[in-house]
């Protein structure tokens, strides 16, 4: 093969069209031929999807995005490669098949990405709502609307897009200027200077706040263990966070600290283990359960500080999703994961900026739900959390490998400086 796939950070071509090629395109060398032809004609290509047949009899399938600098050049390339079986996916209506059972898609369903997507129905392009990866696209042909629907929410009779025909995807990096997220393209690294990145994150957070955007904080218990509760409280009091997603652990240890001054039994002030400290988190959960919930504990004066307290006081909505290892849990924790996913899906609508701090599972769960248009900053001491998130397709993520406490401390200082200069 003469060429190489178009890189994300390369100059984006002005005109793109997606084509699909099916058949024994590997053995017959049709796929490399098509890619070489695109290159030879001065175009660029990106393999969007490829499925290789498992046995010699199985056909393979590829979706290739062809790019060119002009409409004419693109048309010429498309004409050339069409002779070899590369057909634009867009020159046809999408194919719809009704779901025949609940909670499962029809076979060959189109599996969505987190990128902005349009589908063609009766010759008209319709924007897909609630964009989310790994979903099906449900279509209401009468109302000419389409939206992403998770497998667990499929109802018998819903019309779903099958195959790739009549579907077009708009990769995020191609739409509009890059603006303040210039560092987005950089890979995850522990060696990167953090100061500049944190300043840019503060800028973005500030802008999102001023422009009426919605900021989501996804946090893990390490926020408490590392002594960062006060920094997060400052963000909450400053109005920089509109929504909190967490598990039982963050809320539990935050409340444990508020009630006993410890996190997992360790005194945060001097680092010593408290007498019977290992019981503190259970006693904290128990006290909240006895109060009827976090909000009731705040209102009754039982809970007087911490992240959960500030959420209640500053009217910041919080959603706690449970896990199999939870103690208690706290009454607000949603223990049915499908229910939790649904609730999260509801509440990410309108989110424009997302800060994920020190939580692997919640970060990945939320990353799966967010459309690519949402800017995501993922901060974790463990590079694999950030890498995992990027590998799963949440490539709009900016990764910062660092201890959360210095990060949050610097972020709060940057935000204060920005506010003062304003």
């Amino acid at each position, binding site marked *: 093969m003469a060429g190489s796939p178009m890189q994300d950070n390369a100059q984006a071509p002005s005109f793109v069209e997606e084509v699909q090629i099916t*058949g024994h395109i590997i*053995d*017959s060398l049709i796929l490399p031929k098509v890619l070489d032809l695109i290159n030879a004609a001065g175009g660029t290509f990106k393999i969007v999807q490829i499925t290789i047949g498992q046995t*010699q*009899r199985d056909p393979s399938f590829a979706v290739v995005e062809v790019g060119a600098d002009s409409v004419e050049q693109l048309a010429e390339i498309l004409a050339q490669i069409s002779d070899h*079986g590369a057909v634009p996916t867009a020159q046809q209506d999408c194919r719809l098949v009704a779901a025949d059972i609940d909670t499962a898609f029809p076979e060959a369903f189109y599996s969505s990405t987190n990128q902005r997507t349009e589908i063609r129905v009766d010759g008209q392009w319709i924007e897909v709502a609630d964009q989310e990866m790994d979903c099906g696209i449900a279509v209401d042909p009468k109302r000419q609307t389409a939206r992403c629907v998770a497998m667990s929410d499929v109802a018998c009779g819903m019309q779903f897009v099958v195959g790739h025909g009549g579907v077009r995807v708009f990769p995020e990096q191609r739409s509009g200027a890059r603006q303040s997220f210039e560092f987005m393209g950089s890979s995850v690294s522990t060696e990167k200077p953090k100061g500049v990145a944190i300043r840019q994150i503060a800028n973005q957070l500030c802008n999102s706040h001023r422009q009426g955007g919605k900021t989501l904080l996804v946090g893990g218990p390490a926020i408490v263990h590392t002594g960062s509760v006060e920094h997060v409280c400052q963000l909450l009091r400053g109005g920089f966070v509109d929504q909190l997603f967490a598990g039982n652990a963050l809320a539990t240890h935050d409340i444990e600290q508020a009630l006993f001054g410890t996190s997992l039994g360790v005194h945060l002030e001097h680092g010593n283990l408290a007498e019977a400290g290992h019981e503190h988190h259970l006693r904290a959960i128990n006290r909240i359960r006895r109060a009827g919930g976090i909000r009731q504990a705040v209102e009754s004066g039982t809970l007087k500080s911490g992240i959960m307290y500030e959420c209640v006081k500053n009217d910041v909505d919080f959603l706690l999703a449970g896990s199999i290892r939870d103690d208690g849990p706290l009454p607000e924790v949603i223990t049915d994961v499908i229910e939790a996913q649904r609730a999260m899906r509801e509440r990410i609508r309108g989110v424009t900026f997302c800060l994920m701090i020190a939580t692997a599972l919640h970060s990945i769960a939320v990353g799966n739900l967010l459309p690519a248009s949402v800017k995501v900053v993922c901060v974790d001491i463990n590079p694999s959390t950030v890498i995992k998130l990027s590998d799963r397709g949440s490539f709009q993520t900016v990764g910062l490998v660092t201890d959360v406490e210095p990060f949050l401390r610097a972020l709060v200082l940057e935000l204060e400086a920005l506010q003062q200069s304003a």
Partner: protein
Amino acid sequence: MNPDQLNPTTHGSDAASSNPTARILMCPPDHYGIEYEINPWMNTERQADHALAVRQWEQLRATLVDAGAQIVEMQPVAGLPDLVFTANAALIYRDTAVLARFRHPQRQGEQPHDEQWLRSAGFTVRDLDEGVFFEGAGDALFCGPTLFAGYRLRSDVRGHQQIGAMFGCRVIPLELVDPYYYHLDTCFCPLAEGVAICFPAAFDDYGRRALSESVEELIPVDEEESRRFACNAVVVGRTVVTNTGCPRLHAALRTRGFEPRETPLDEFVKAGGSAKCLTLRLDGEEAASWKHATAE
């Protein structure tokens, strides 16, 4: 027991005699002539000698019968001079015939006659999608389990993809780059599973590579003999019938245990066809592995 005895019909030199049902469709050349020009061989100024063409066709027929084939004839139709090239009528796969859809309007009139004959012979006739050109066994030849399929000059690659999906078989489309070799059967001929004749210059680099990776033994034909339609051969058991003037190919075939036979077909070469083009194997080509397998 000798393992060969378990499977006596596959590739033995007595395959023809053990396979008396080699059935071949031919169409007498009553209305054959050069009436239009749709390939570089054709020149209406260089007309075929009709009486000689009829003698050559009869000789080919006799040669094939002698090799053990049973010839089935279809009715010639006035105004359809190329109906004589029955290879283009359809692709045969078991009892299914994928009907041709000719690229040139001059040959499209053949389709209803082909369809009628195939139906009357008991084949299930299948069409490809509207707008997809496909010229039958001229562009689609099984070698082993794989269908090798020529495209771009006459057939569309999309049609080959549809056939692959229809039969659940592996299809290797090969772009034909020389207008003199406008059908795959003018530059490629499977002889047995894993063995084929080919004229490499009729393909591009991708096609040559795909062929050499998919066919164990490719017997190359030089340009001079390719122009004599050496690749346009009819295989019946181990007998390989070609036009005259292909001595080097015949020598190569003999060393591999095949029995080459020649019969003059120059009057048909004037229209861009030769032995293979004049025949359609109805029970599956010798090299098609599905033919030797038990029905699925």
